[in-house]
């Protein structure tokens, strides 16, 4: 199922992802019962506290582009998962599973499968 923003959305079991161990915030603002796959092009990768985040443009058609901001956790936790400052770079074609914001904003938490330039990135933890 592909909608006009080029996003494949599916609802999956969330038991494995629903317990948050570390973060400055919990999951109140995000819908942890839903996983959405955002497929697009990286425009910026910010390696900072309190959360690392990746900006992804998703082209719907020749006129419309959706600008997503997708957060991970802090740099140390991400390093433990195998991320580095070089994991993403502008121009990368990515497909990221996320929990979307409850309010419908184009913001999400990266939780699950990560594909970068057609290669799956396997996290360590």
């Amino acid at each position: 199922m592909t909608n006009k923003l080029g996003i494949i959305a599916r609802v999956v079991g969330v038991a494995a992802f629903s317990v948050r161990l570390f973060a400055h915030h919990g999951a109140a603002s995000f819908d942890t019962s839903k996983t959405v796959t955002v497929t697009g092009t990286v425009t910026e990768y910010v390696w900072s506290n309190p959360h690392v985040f990746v900006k992804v443009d998703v082209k719907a058609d020749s006129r419309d582009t959706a600008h997503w901001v997708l957060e991970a956790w802090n740099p140390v936790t991400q390093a433990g998962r195998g991320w580095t400052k070089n994991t993403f770079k502008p121009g990368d074609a990515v497909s990221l599973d996320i929990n979307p914001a409850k309010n419908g904003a184009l913001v999400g938490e990266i939780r699950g499968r990560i594909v970068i330039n057609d290669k799956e990135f396997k996290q360590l933890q």
Partner: protein
Amino acid sequence: MSKRLVVSIAAVMAAGMFSPLLRAQDEKWNNIPPRRSAYDGKKSSAPAPRRDMTGIWDAAQALGTSGASEHPALLPGGRGSEGGREDETGIAKPLPYTPAGLEALKKNKPSGPGVRQVDSALTNDPAGKCDPLGFPYMFLWELRTLNVVQTPRQVMMLSPFYGNYRVIWTDGRQPPKDPDPRYNGYSVGKWVDDYTFVVETTGMLPKTWLDHAGRPHSDQLVVEETYHRVDRDTMDLTMKITDPKMYAEPWLALNQLPLHLQPADFDIPELLCSPSEFAEYNKQVGSVVLRDSSKK
């Protein structure tokens, strides 16, 4: 050297270069401690040295964000992390709040997962402004890796998480009687036997929080920590909270939390709170995902 052997060596080298796990193990910087499961079933190590807690100690990601681990701000079964409540009614292990304690609790709006969680942009958590966490908040949120340095007069605990450090005097002095408040308070420690170190801390700033669930404290707070060196590689930590203004009786925030000794050359990664980075995060994410935009 056979062609097959050359190919095998090249494959191993390539795996090493591109495997994050191997890379992390090879490098001397920004070491990531093992997960808690790495210690499961491990046999006890050599005996502990006497009256010595020097070393790099890691809590193996044992603490979460929902409050002091003995009293998580969650309902039975870990439910309720979506927040939205004013108080902690119904949590699995309730705290003995006094009326003043309950009133103070309600004023603190935590963003960490728990029954009282609010949206990140609406929290008044000192951590949300990169204010100093103070003690014991620094130990009751993300207690990660501690560098413990022992001198004849002091035990120093250095934590790159939020740039926290503590000085515990061991020169026999008594706690101050009526101190000016400090974020980290005033800590004195003594060995009660060869393997047990007890620390008493008083004089903490009342505006700081006890933990990431927004538990309050007053100027009457006394924190007693007991570090017990189980063997060379393990030390457990118990923390007792006494604050008669806020809590009708003392309670344990940590109960024999295991800390694991890391290799002597373990380099703890930095995790600091930068106000400008935090502001950028709130601009890009925190304020954008508010569920009720009228509260912006």
